[in-house]
Each structure stands twice: as C-alpha cells, then as structure tokens.
C-alpha cells in the first residue's frame, strides 16, 4: 500500500493543490479524474520527482519518505501523455537503455527481458523499428514496456487515451487490466470517464477533493 499525505504544490502565489492525501492499495488501479488544466499532470510529475513539491510525505512498504526522494521515484514508472520515446533509438534500445545504464544489466540479460516485454505487449515485430515508424498505440505500448523494464512498484499514466483511437484505447485497457491481474499497482490521470470506469478500482475526483 502506498499512502500520500499532506502533498502541497504551488507556483508562486498560485496553489495547485494543498494538503492532498491519497491511498493506492497494492494491485489496484486508481483513477485521478478532473478536467484539463486543473493540475492532475502536476500531481503525477510531483510523484515521479519531475516537479518539486512544497511539502508531502509518502509511505511505501511501511517506510516513510519525503516526497520526490529518489528512493521513491525510482519505484514509480511513468507513461507520458506524448510518450517521450527516444527518437534515435529503436524500440528495443528504448527498452534496454535504462536497465543497462541504471541497473547495470548485461546486454544479453536486458535483451531477454525486453523480448518478454515485447511479446507481452504485442511489439515483437516492431522491435527494430524507430519511434517515428510506429502508430500512436504502438508508441504508447513502447512507453509502457520501457517503464516496466525497470520493475517499478507503481505505474503512473498521464492521460493515456488522449490522441488514441477507440481500438488503441481498448488495447490500453487490456494491458492495464492484465498488469492488474499480475498485481502491479497503477495510477492513471484522465478526463475520460468511460475509460476510467473500465480500468479503475478507485477514483479520486480532483475537483471535489482538492483544497486550494
């Protein structure tokens, strides 16, 4: 279980959220809902250490950390809204870069892992393609594979269905549900209610629950 307590973020005078708390149970999908521009992405960037928060605590594995500590952020994988794949690397190299550089895995070891992920996400045929050669849905799945390669405890998605057609959205749903079946905890930021209904166990209404 992961508990976030007292998370506050402001840009100058503008308060994005204040004293925000939320709980993510193991193996569950938590959907954070709310209209665009309300600060959902900022929340997810704060959780992954891309934005500094004014205050906040996170409890993980029974231990308490301050927010955006590397010990916490390394356990959270992020799928970006616009994917942010590395354009100069093939699909395979996008996936093995971090395991080799950060976890110092050997190339063979990293490739074996990548093969599994590629097969699981239906990307085996795209392994040697570059990101510009992929469809939106395929890019999304490469992003997921790249995050999963680091064995995160939690996967966070920022608006995963924006820019995807119905079929690709269905694939995202299927992937999220199969990850859930494997026990991966997931947080998804979205304004797409039908999508949220399909994947989420719990929802967090940003507009209602956030104090400013």
């Amino acid at each position, binding site marked *: 279980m992961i508990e976030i307590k007292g998370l506050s973020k402001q840009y100058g005078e503008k308060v994005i959220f204040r004293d925000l708390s939320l709980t993510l149970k193991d193996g569950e999908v938590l959907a954070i809902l709310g209209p665009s521009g309300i600060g959902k992405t900022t929340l997810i960037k704060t959780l992954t250490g891309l934005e500094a928060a004014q205050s906040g605590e996170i409890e993980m594995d029974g231990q308490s950390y301050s927010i955006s500590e*590397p010990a916490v952020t390394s356990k959270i994988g992020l799928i970006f809204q616009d994917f942010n794949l590395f354009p100069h690397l093939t699909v395979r190299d996008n996936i093995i870069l971090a395991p080799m550089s950060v976890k110092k895995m050997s190339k063979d070891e990293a490739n074996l892992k990548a093969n599994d992920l590629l097969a699981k996400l239906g990307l085996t045929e795209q392994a040697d393609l570059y990101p*510009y050669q992929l469809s939106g849905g395929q890019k999304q799945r490469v992003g997921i594979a790249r*995050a999963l390669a680091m064995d995160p405890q939690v996967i966070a998605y920022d608006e995963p269905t924006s820019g995807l057609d119905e079929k690709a959205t269905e694939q995202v749903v299927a992937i999220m549900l199969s990850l859930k079946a494997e026990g991966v905890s997931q947080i998804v930021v979205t304004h797409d209610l039908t999508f949220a209904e399909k994947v989420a166990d719990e929802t967090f209404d940003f507009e209602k629950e956030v104090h400013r």
Partner: protein
Amino acid sequence: MENVMTFLPGILAGLQMTLGVFFITIIGSVPLGILASLAMKSPYFTIRWLVNGYIWIMRGTPLLLQLIFIYYGLAMVGVSFTRFEAAAFAFIINYAAYLAEIFRGGLQSIPQGQFDAAKVLGLSKGQTFFKVILPQVVKIVVPSFGNEVVNLVKDTSLIYVIGLGDILRAGSIAAARDVTLVPYLIVGVLYLIMTAVVTITLRASEKHLNVWR
C-alpha cells in the same frame, strides 16, 4: 612540366601544415565547443557571463587579429608559443566559440520531455547527456557544423601571418619565383579537393543519421 616538379614538393609540405592545423582544430574545438555550450546554460551567472564574453570576443574580432595577438602579443607579456602552438591555440578557441553557438541551438531544440523521460527512468545527468541528448543534438547540428568545417579548410590559410608555411604560402613563393600562376591553380584545386572530401563525408553522415527522425 619541369616547373611543376620544382614547386610541387614545397606545396606538398605546405599541404601537410594546412592539414595539421585543420585536424588539430577539429579535435580540440569540438569538445571545447560542447563544454562552452553547456556552460552557457549554467545556473551560475558568473560562468554564463564569462562564456558569453569569450564567445563575443571570439566571434566579434577577426581570426587574423587573434592569431597576431596570441603569437606576438602574448610573447610580449612572457607567454611564448611556438608558431604552430599559437596557430593551434588560436584556431581551437576561435572555432570552439562558433561551434558552441551551434551546439547551444541544437541543445535548445531538444524537447523537455526527453530530459523528463530520462530522469524518470533514473538515468544520471551524464547518462542523459551522452546517451539521450547528445546523439539527438548531433543530428540537428550536422549541417551547420559542416559549414564551419568548410570555412575552416579555407581559414587555415590565415596562418601565414605568423610565418607558418601552409599551401597558399608555398604557392605564393613558387608563383613569385617562377613568375607563373600555375602554383596558384594547383593550390586552388587542392582546396577544392579538401572541401569536396569534407562535404562528401558530412553528406554521408547526414544520410546515416536519417535512419531515425
């Protein structure tokens, strides 16, 4: 034909000097230029100010003048270089300034999302720079870098001012001695060959980099 044989050895010796200055400038100015482009983004005002001052001076004064100052001027205050060292130093710091501006432009056009993605994956700053950012910057800057390299081929002729014998100087000597334009013609052809080699090499690397977009 007999004439050509009398001045060809001189021109070839000059060619060696020209190529020497050319390669040492490339080897020295590329890393220095990258470093300077990073320093321009430094969080410390003093560092940014110093680097911008350096680039302003290098780009704002003729290379010819810089050569004179570095060889003759520094000798007057007790810093003495050999002629070749002075030429190498002047060319490296001059070209590094131009390259720094080019690299800075390339660096700026990398979307923030690339830095974010690398950070979330846990890559260190060094890994992010060398494995994610630099390869993308290289692709962006190759065309403008190519321009600078072609300029460099021709700029090497400026070293005559501190008494170094490059191909142009060798050509001039031969032309004056034999009262003929043939040496100049040969020198011109050699410059064309050198710039052609540079252009072809860079085109090939552009093509190679086009496997991804």
